[in-house]
């Protein structure tokens, strides 16, 4: 017969209490289910599939239409930004709301679990899931494809820097979507606002505000693809390049802080 005396009590305390167990569960939903391979396969087909067509098929079928390394790399990184950004929003729109609606959040929080631990477990597990299946896996496969087509290894520094910026870009939308999930009880507003932010950011980069609010362009997430484009083309980055990186990083911290603040006030 089991006895409480023979078991070791959890020694987590305070704002991270319950995090390890929740993180294990959230990770399990990525890696012990079919999610990881369906996501990997999906992005393999979409991102690396389109890249493969550009790198291997077009030069054979229509050689005059074939792009060079910079064009192919540019297309790949553009695909890696936009499509996964929408996927992050769609996949995580219900991460908090579904738990609030189903009652599992109340069940979890009736145990010794901090609300910040609940939010952080979702953020970190999903961030790892998306970064591994999208950025790392697809980035690695694309690197192999492009290197093979070029007959030599691509310069690794700018490539890794581009993937790093893409990671920041996806984390921005992940943190935004999770934060919205703590403020609303329906998926509609979460999806609408997150996609609205993305579209607004894209339109702003299309010089919607550049004329009279140039500073705005510097602190929107769509500035990151601009930096990536410059990196890919081997251009010198603009002197203000740290500004968007710092701004987006601060947004992420702000969104996570707001999510924890709001979730601490949630009543079940």
């Amino acid at each position, binding site marked *: *017969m*089991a006895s*409480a005396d023979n*078991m*070791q009590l959890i020694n987590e305390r305070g704002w991270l209490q319950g995090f390890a167990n929740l993180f294990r*569960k959230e990770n399990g939903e990525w890696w012990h289910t079919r999610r990881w391979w369906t996501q990997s396969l999906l992005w393999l087909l979409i991102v690396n599939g389109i890249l493969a067509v550009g790198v291997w098929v077009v030069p054979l079928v229509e050689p005059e239409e074939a792009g060079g390394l910079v064009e192919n790399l540019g297309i790949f990184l553009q695909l890696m930004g936009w499509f996964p950004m929408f996927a992050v929003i769609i996949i995580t729109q219900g991460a908090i709301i579904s738990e609030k609606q189903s009652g*599992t959040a109340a069940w979890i929080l009736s145990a*010794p679990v901090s609300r910040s631990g609940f939010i952080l477990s979702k953020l970190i597990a999903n961030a790892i899931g998306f970064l591994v299946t999208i950025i790392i896996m697809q980035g690695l496969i694309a690197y192999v494809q492009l290197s093979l087509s070029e007959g030599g290894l691509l310069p690794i520094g700018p490539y890794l820097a581009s993937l790093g910026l893409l990671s920041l870009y996806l984390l921005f939308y992940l943190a935004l979507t999770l934060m919205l999930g703590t403020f609303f009880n329906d998926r509609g507003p979460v999806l609408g606002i997150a996609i609205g932010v993305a579209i607004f950011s894209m339109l702003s980069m299309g010089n919607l505000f550049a004329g009279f609010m140039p500073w705005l362009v510097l602190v929107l997430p769509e500035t990151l693809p601009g930096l990536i484009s410059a990196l890919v083309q081997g251009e010198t980055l603009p002197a203000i390049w740290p500004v968007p990186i710092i701004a987006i990083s601060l947004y992420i911290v702000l969104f996570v802080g707001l999510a924890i603040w709001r979730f601490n006030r949630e009543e079940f």
Partner: protein
Amino acid sequence: MTTNELVINTQGLGKSYGDVHALKSLDLKVPKNSIFGFLGPNGAGKTTAIKLLLGLTRPTSGSGSVFGQDIVEDGLDIRKRIGYLAQDPRFYEHMTARETLHFKAHFYYSGPLDEIENRVTETLELVGLSDKADRPIKGFSGGERQRLGIAQAQINYPDLLILDEPAAALDPMGRRDVLEVMERIQKHATIFYSTHILDDVQRVSDSVAILNHGVLVAQAPIQELLGGSQGTIYFLDIEGETDKDQARIADQAWVSSIDVTSADAQTTWQVTVTDDDAAKAQLLRLVMEDEQLSVTKFGRKTYELEEIFMNIVEGDNHG
């Protein structure tokens, strides 16, 4: 009763949502190692009170403590020692019962893993879910979910088990099993549970509180409550002329009133007494002194909890 002997102690605990007062000034005292029945009609505020104790919602007035710790400030520490079953327990549908219990156990224990596995296995046996332990919960019936809910609530050997309608979704056999589990757990834990099934409360509880419209209208040990609020009453069915005897009995110092009803040749007295020992020793003997009378039935009136509950709640509604 000192505060050390109380597991739950609230003072004026209240919860309002705008103009709606879900709970008004609750003063609840739950003694250690009791099975405490928390009763009230639908919407009385029982679940709100439970959620306040668990820190799932925050009070708008008053305060409360569990194990002497503040329910707002010390929620995490309090919940380490609590097991909770919600009214409509929800779990992750893709998990099996065994996975659910492992998941819950890991909020309290880090190991050893074989000890945790033993605890999970014995808890599954306790609630009769061993044969379904490895099936996903999405295929479980309401009763099976309830059993799993009871299992997960006690996985951490809680000092306080809070059960919100634990037997609501169970068949009679399931209800019996739950009551047996509760009686077993009482040896080392306090059980605080809300229910509508008054027979169960009368069978296993030692204390009761009744809530109506967010207000605590009664709180007492169950025997005290079942004894009635109007003092101890003895009833006698008597054959014969009782007029002069009634006056004789009413003169006793320990008799406060006699209600008389007659039907056919039989008279029924309901004698309200202030001293139960004196009544027990003398009442029947005094009546039998009149040799013209025959007493066909004698006893102390007992109440059913349902009767008490209806009287209190309806009296409160009309008052």
